[in-house]
């Protein structure tokens, strides 16, 4: 098979897999689509068996890391961490929507950084919604804040976003060095959101006339918080003690899971489900499909477009192009395509600039990418209650400003 044909076929398979992942047809799980696509590409020779094996081996540790983090997040939910966050927000806000927004910003940023954007979207957002309803204040700025911070605050740690985990593996940075370089960019991206949100939702954030009754004192689940703290400390010390961070994630997952199994507050089936095996297979399949496209010429096309240097203009261009890419094909495939290229040509600067692009870029819409939004709109008229222009305007303001501010501070951090 010629390279041209192979890359074309791989891109068709990628498009079909993404179409399934975006449209959620009831009888075709995305894991099956990605898995079948990968097998098909091996069978027709678009990627050799050893090439596919290499791709799977390269992704293996990352997928294991992801599964462990999913178990930790699920354990935190079981221990009541997210409900406790709701109580913290309700009490701390004192009924003021502005104070509530400040707390949502802090808590959503912390949850995203430590437990990943999935935890913020799936587990924290309903709690924030319920808290706003309880305080009788508009849920709109608060829910928009969760959606935005799940992306903007996911720059900080390798575990904050699957894109980071993929890049972390390729970057050969230590956990602490990654966090140190991304600390200022994260603060910049979140600060941009804060400034824009305060102005954008000024009317929704006016104080209600009557204070709501004082909610009860929140009780933090000490065990879950302790497990999280120990896991984070393990991550930070991983390079000092010479143990890969993934083992601390595994230890954290075991620490929060085994007691639940013993006490029978969780069943093995529920725990297996919490690792989202379908999602893990999807990531592995997607990795093989993208590898088939890259090995047959896509990577040289990407290399031709992407600047290779670490100067500020280069980093800005990399972040901007990555954001565009993430909006065309979603950030997971974009990361799989871009990271090997930037990792082979540049140092850690271009890799982290790519992450700024693929993580902040999706805030342009609320469904992951602009392409997803357009396809959903084309396929069926839904979301008629959403002022599409409003969310797009919010994205059009925060995304470019966030990209520039975060990349600028990344460049500064790299100079030290």
């Amino acid at each position: 098979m010629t390279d041209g044909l192979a890359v074309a076929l791989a891109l068709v398979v990628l498009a079909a897999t993404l179409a399934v992942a975006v449209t959620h047809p009831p009888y075709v799980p995305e894991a099956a689509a990605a898995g079948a696509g990968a097998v098909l590409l091996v069978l027709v020779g678009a990627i050799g068996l050893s090439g596919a094996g290499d791709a799977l081996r390269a992704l293996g540790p990352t997928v294991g890391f992801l599964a462990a983090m999913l178990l930790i997040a699920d354990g935190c939910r079981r221990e009541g961490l997210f409900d406790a966050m709701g109580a913290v927000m309700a009490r701390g806000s004192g009924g003021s929507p502005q104070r509530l927004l400040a707390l949502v910003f802090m808590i959503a940023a912390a949850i995203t950084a430590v437990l990943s954007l999935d935890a913020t979207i799936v587990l924290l957002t309903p709690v924030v919604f319920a808290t706003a309803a309880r305080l009788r204040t508009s849920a709109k700025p608060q829910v928009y804040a969760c959606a935005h911070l799940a992306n903007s605050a996911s720059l900080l740690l390798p575990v904050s976003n699957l894109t980071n985990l993929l890049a972390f593996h390729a970057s050969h940075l230590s956990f602490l060095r990654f966090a140190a370089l991304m600390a200022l960019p994260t603060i910049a991206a979140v600060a941009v959101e804060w400034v824009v949100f305060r102005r954008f939702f000024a009317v929704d954030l006016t104080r209600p006339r009557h204070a709501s009754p004082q909610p009860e004192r929140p009780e933090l689940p000490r065990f879950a918080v302790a497990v999280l703290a120990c896991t984070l400390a393990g991550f930070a010390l991983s390079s000092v003690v010479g143990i890969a961070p993934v083992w601390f994630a595994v230890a954290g997952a075991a620490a929060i899971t085994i007691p639940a199994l013993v006490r029978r507050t969780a069943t093995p089936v529920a725990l297996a489900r919490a690792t989202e095996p379908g999602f893990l297979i999807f990531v592995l399949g997607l990795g093989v499909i993208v590898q088939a496209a890259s090995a047959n010429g896509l990577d040289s096309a990407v290399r031709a477009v992407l600047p290779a240097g670490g100067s500020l203009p280069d980093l800005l261009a990399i972040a901007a192009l990555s954001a565009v890419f993430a909006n065309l094909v979603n950030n997971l495939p974009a990361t799989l395509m871009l990271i090997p290229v930037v990792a082979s040509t540049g140092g850690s600067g271009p890799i982290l600039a790519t992450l700024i692009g693929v993580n902040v870029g999706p805030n342009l819409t609320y469904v992951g990418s602009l392409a997803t939004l357009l396809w959903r709109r084309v396929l069926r008229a839904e979301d008629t209650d959403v002022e599409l222009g409003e969310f797009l305007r919010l994205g059009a303001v925060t995304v470019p400003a966030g990209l520039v501010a975060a990349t600028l501070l990344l460049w500064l951090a790299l100079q030290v």
Partner: protein
Amino acid sequence: MRALIWIIEDTWQATIDDARALLPSDAEITLLHVANTEPETIAREARRGLLGRRLPPPPASHELQTISELAAQQLLTEAQARLGRPATLQARRGRVEREVVSAAEGVDIIILARDGDRQRLGPRSLGPATRFVIDHAPCRVLLIWPDVVPELRTIPPPPPPGKPPPHESPGP
């Protein structure tokens, strides 16, 4: 007289108090609350937008529509208690301004509160939803100030000759 009282979370007490004071005793009252479904849609779509995850339906305690409906019912019940008169309770969901106008069809008067900047007199004291309802109401409108009415001096001085007033000048 058929009267529709549209209540929102921030200002419902004042709206109810004024309606009780101003409506004739034989008025047939409907209390209306409209839940804006936009945040629910954003949250649901952000969840669906997580590529490759097929998540099970959320537990009942995390079902946003249930949370929203329970909150609306509770608010309407409290409002009726404060009104102290029989009233029909109506909870709607969707685009707030459109739902309110549609609920106002066939009533004689709608009572609502300013929902914007309440610190000074002026066009900004109306938020987008209230402005839409006032502009499109198919009935009489009673617009109340939910707090202490701002003083007259909060009106900005007239613009210099030849310059349009702030609300007519092009935005920043």
